[in-house]
């Protein structure tokens, strides 16, 4: 079983990202489960959504305490909480961070077994235009597919109609592909 924690801020679409990822995994024949950490929905507030993916139905109903993968959709979250605090020693982190990951603090670098960055904020501004809170969820899913390789980006595309109106599908597909192409391994 693989466990994935997705951190974001209210409005960025972390819960939707988790649901798209789980739906894509489902399309590939896995038995996923996804759920948010329960809180009042407020714009800008930290949000975490959990995803489990397994080859058979998942019975357990508890939060994820030792994720294999942690996705951080907004770097400012590191000022408020410790998204990598419980990652498995050989776990993988995917972080929204500019400049090809240069200047990422060593305190963050040393926590994950492997670490990737993608400048999802910049891509979000390019694809969706300037929004108060950059919408980085589909972009970071593209990056996830490039980094983890267990879910194909094509399955993300196939999951999009469950979450977006028809006229937004191609825009989000472009965002996912840009996330995929702009992943940087550190």
């Amino acid at each position: 079983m693989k466990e994935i924690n997705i951190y974001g801020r209210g409005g960025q679409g972390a819960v939707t990202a988790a649901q798209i990822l789980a739906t894509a995994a489902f399309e590939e024949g896995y038995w996923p489960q996804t759920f948010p950490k329960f809180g009042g929905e407020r714009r800008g507030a930290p949000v975490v959504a959990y995803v489990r993916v397994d080859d058979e139905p998942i019975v357990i109903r508890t939060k994820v305490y030792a994720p294999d993968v942690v996705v951080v959709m907004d770097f400012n979250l590191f000022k408020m909480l410790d998204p990598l605090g419980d990652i498995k020693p050989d776990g993988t982190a995917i972080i929204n961070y500019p400049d090809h990951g240069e200047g990422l603090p060593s305190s963050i670098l040393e926590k994950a077994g492997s670490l990737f960055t993608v400048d999802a904020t910049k891509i979000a501004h390019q694809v969706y235009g300037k929004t108060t809170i950059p919408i980085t969820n589909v972009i970071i899913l593209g990056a996830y597919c490039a980094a983890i390789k267990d879910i194909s980006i094509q399955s993300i595309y196939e999951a999009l109609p469950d979450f977006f109106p028809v006229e937004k599908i191609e825009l989000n597909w472009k965002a996912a592909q840009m996330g995929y192409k702009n992943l940087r391994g550190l």
Partner: protein
Amino acid sequence: MEKRKMLTGNYAAAHGARLARVEVVPVYPITPQTHIMEKMAAFVESGELDAEFVPVESEHSAMAVAIAAQATGARTFTASSSQGLVYMHENLFVASGLRLPVVMAMVNRTIGAPTTICPDLSDSLDQRDTGWIQIYTESAQEAHDMIIQAYRVGEDERVLLPVGICFEGMIISHYMEPVEILDQGKVDRFLPPYRPEHVVLDPDRPMSVHQLVLDDSYYTEYKYQQQVAMEEAKGVIQEVDEAFGETFGRRYGGLISTEMMEDAEVALLTLGSMAPTARAVVSQLREEEDMPIGLVKLRAFRPFPDEELKESLSNLKAVAVLERDVSIGAGGIVYLELAHCLGKKHDSPLLTNYIMGLGGRDVTFEEIKDTALNLFEERDAEVMTNPIRWYQVRGLS
């Protein structure tokens, strides 16, 4: 054909109501139930469901509309949680007293103060004396399937009682997982249209309903008939589960479900979302430690399955009741009922009660395992000391 899809518990329940071809949906929004309301409104708007959607101004009115609609012979569905369910309270007695088989998704959430949107079972358990059947479920699939079973149970002429299908908010309502959406044709064969004879508000067939029964007239007999109906419901819940299994290939066990109880010396008893995690604990202790432990999942809380529980538990040494609720000043609500049911016979198992997970606090595999290991340590005691235990209250040494 059945179709598997990623759904939350809320959406799975809404699909269940759609497949039951409900005709009137009066509902007022409250977290964590609101997605059910939204989905039902969407079904009506898109034409997928031919029903009257009634956006009322409160939960009290939602139940009033449900009662009136059901009394005209319409199949009615509503959903509520927490303060909303409590606000409906007085009308719940009316629905059951008039023998109207309304079905409601009771999406469990704490009752404030303090306020949280997170779950425990106190809101629906608090409705235990209203004459509603209550079934507790552990997954989106079970919620989906049980909404459909609920109509067949409630509308059975031996029963004619309203039914609440309960599932924990957030933990089931907001978990998204693969759910098999049942086939409409099969559901139609399993669940024929509601055609009541006992209460029908129809100008062409005048009938007096909800009369005043003063002095020494028949109030006692009305209540006694409800009690008889609730007793009858025990068999009907079992029958409907069997029929459901024959049609859809999936059974839940009726009033209770038991696992690994053969040769068990001790058992965990729980309900709702803790059941699957408890199942994983019991499996591990059986397989890896060879410990004689079993699991009883309480599905029906009303009617309370006293005979079934006695049969499953009487020969055990000890039972731990794990529950996400409390009656302040007494103990866990399920524990209290179980203690009453098993009585104080010399061969009754030792009972212990863990009040845990209140307000949505996560109940982990390790914590449930801890309660199971305690049970093994205490199973040969003369009496269970301090049986009612608030599990891991912070700030206590």
